[in-house]
């Protein structure tokens, strides 16, 4: 079907401004992705899947300006023993990064990978599978045009997390990064990500986890500036595997985080969670699609949003249970805490179930801070501002609890507390 003229024009203009990387094993996948983008067209305000989030600035040929924000605080995850990998405005920074060798994992740059590479079978594969039943043009755009990224093959259990940190310097930088993660059977790793990455950031991570494998993914996005980001995590889970992903987002004019999870093996577990804090023109969108196509798998979606001064939060979450996916345990909760009457939360929770022996539930709420609880704290002498912060931290606790590692949980909560303190100051 031909694209509407306006969409065609916008897509053509955007694609014309980009250069398809040539040479190497990824070329067929890139060309295939390009043809998909051309067929789908980039999303517009009339697309159902983008009705709560305007994609204009993500489509625009010219990158909207976003000055880097100086937070005067040490980078998150910086104090722990980890393998540090740095990207500056979307370009790998070898000097700032550690040596990429670590027992239990093989890491290569997308830009460096030789002609024949294990990632050839995966690059763009999960992204392509994730294009149905819902189209995700920005992910296809990413597969076609990604200029850098990491190919991470987990072959054992690395002794420390792989920490990818993104630094933003250019006021109009436009980064497109694509990571591929393959976890071998019985292996386990933790990937940490943080940083604003660029004025505009298009991020894709494809994760393929073999039988009994596990990947823990924790990222912190944001800081206080006008950056825009669209991210996709595509995960495929084999039998008895585990995938847990948590994202903390603090500010940013526009963030759309999509997670597309597919169970292909029985008895697997996937948790996707997130918390965000924003005010003013902050717009944050979590869009999740989980497909159960295996027996006795567990999925959890836990999202909490704290919004004020006109901020907007969006949640679109779906659990699709295929006919053979008996004994599915699917849970989905999305809640927002509106700290004033100017903010809004838009939610579209969905269950689509074709199996008859499942336990799936979902809930979505938005509300203000509970006045009874607030009074209780204040009646003990806790000043209103601190009491509100305590209640806010308490509100996001259920999502933060989805992170297995207590020290990571504490570090993220510390960041949230710092964010709240800055606003109270």
């Amino acid at each position, binding site marked *: 079907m031909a694209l509407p003229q306006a969409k065609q024009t916008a897509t053509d203009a955007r694609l014309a401004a980009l250069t398809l990387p040539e040479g190497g094993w990824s070329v067929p996948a890139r060309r295939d992705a390009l043809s998909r983008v051309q067929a789908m067209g980039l999303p517009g305000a009339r697309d159902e899947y983008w009705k709560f989030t305007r994609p204009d600035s993500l489509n625009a040929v010219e990158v909207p300006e976003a000055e880097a924000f100086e937070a005067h605080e040490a980078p998150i995850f910086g104090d722990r023993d980890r393998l540090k990998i740095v990207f500056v405005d979307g370009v790998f920074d070898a000097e700032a990064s550690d040596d990429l060798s670590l027992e239990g994992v093989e890491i290569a740059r997308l830009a460096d990978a030789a002609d024949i590479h294990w990632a050839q079978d995966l690059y763009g594969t999960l992204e392509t599978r994730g294009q149905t039943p819902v189209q995700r043009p920005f992910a296809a755009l990413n597969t076609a045009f990604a200029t850098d990224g990491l190919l991470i093959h987990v072959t054992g259990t690395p002794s420390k997390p792989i920490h990818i940190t993104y630094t933003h310097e250019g006021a109009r930088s436009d980064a497109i990064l694509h990571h591929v993660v393959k976890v071998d059977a019985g292996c386990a790793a933790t990937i940490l990500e943080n940083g604003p990455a660029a004025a505009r950031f298009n991020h894709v991570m494809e994760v393929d986890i073999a039988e009994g494998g596990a990947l823990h993914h924790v990222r912190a996005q944001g800081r206080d500036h006008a950056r825009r980001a669209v991210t996709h995590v595509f995960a495929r889970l084999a039998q008895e595997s585990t995938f847990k992903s948590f994202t903390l987002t603090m500010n940013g004019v526009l963030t759309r985080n999509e997670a597309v999870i597919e169970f292909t093996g029985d008895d697997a577990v996937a948790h996707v969670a997130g918390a965000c804090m924003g005010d003013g023109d902050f717009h944050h969108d979590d869009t999740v699609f989980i497909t159960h196509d295996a027996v006795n798998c567990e999925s959890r979606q836990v999202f909490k949003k704290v919004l004020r001064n006109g901020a907007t939060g969006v949640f679109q979450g779906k659990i699709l249970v295929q006919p053979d996916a008996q004994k599915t345990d699917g849970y989905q909760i999305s809640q927002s805490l509106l700290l004033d009457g100017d903010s809004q939360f838009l939610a579209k929770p969905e269950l689509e179930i074709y199996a008859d022996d499942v336990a799936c539930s979902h809930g979505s709420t938005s509300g203000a801070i*509970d*006045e*009874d*609880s607030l*009074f*209780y*704290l*204040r*009646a*003990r*002498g*806790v*000043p*209103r501002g*601190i*009491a509100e912060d*305590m*209640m806010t*931290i*308490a*509100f*996001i*606790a*259920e999502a933060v609890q989805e992170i297995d590692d207590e020290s990571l949980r504490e570090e993220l909560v510390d960041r949230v507390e710092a964010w709240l303190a800055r606003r109270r100051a």
Partner: protein
Amino acid sequence: MLEIKNLHVKLEEEDKQILKGVNLTVEAGKVHAIMGPNGSGKSTLSYVLSGRDGYEVTEGSATLLGEEILDMEAEERAAAGLFLAFQYPVEIPGVGNMTFLRTAVNAQRKARGEEEMSSTEFLKTIRAKAAELKIDADMLKRPVNVGFSGGEKKRNEILQMAMLEPKMCILDETDSGLDVDAMKLVSDGVNALRDEGRGFLVITHYQRLLDHIKPDVVHIMADGRIIKTGGPELALEVETNGYADLIAEEA
């Protein structure tokens, strides 16, 4: 200690007068009890004194150690030495009991210009006081009141009182939801805090709490006013005859 003069209060959201001229003085070192039927304004009095929103003081005053408290925020009243043990303590998921209490202790100290309590000192103190109240160490680590039984919630209230060391303690129907053993524990905790420098206002429906916390003065409240004041024997009279005769007598 606490001096309430001609206190008139109505609900903010509706034109309904709840307190209609309460006069009450609680001296340091004394325990005053307020008894009264449902709807007489007992809990409203405790909420108004502690600074809960939703009430409008239309007339009168309330001073704590000579300082007007009705103009203060709730947290300022707490720092000034007022404590309300809630009838129904709220559960606050996600806020650790210990974190909350330490924040409260130090916020009050800061407000009074005192030095904050160190982590070590706080831990030592809370563990000792929790042991006295037979509060399990695990309860301290849990979120505030979450999953606590009725008795545990009330013991937690008394633990907070013990940690914050207020000048004036208001107990709002602390006996509700308590079995005999829990009542004894909670009462022992309260009695341990009785001293010459501290006043208590015990709000209750029944005499049985007053068997454990012996009051110096008993007030009967009805229709937003204190209609009778006497000694401990007044509570026994209520226990035997109910409120009807007293209310009729007043009318």
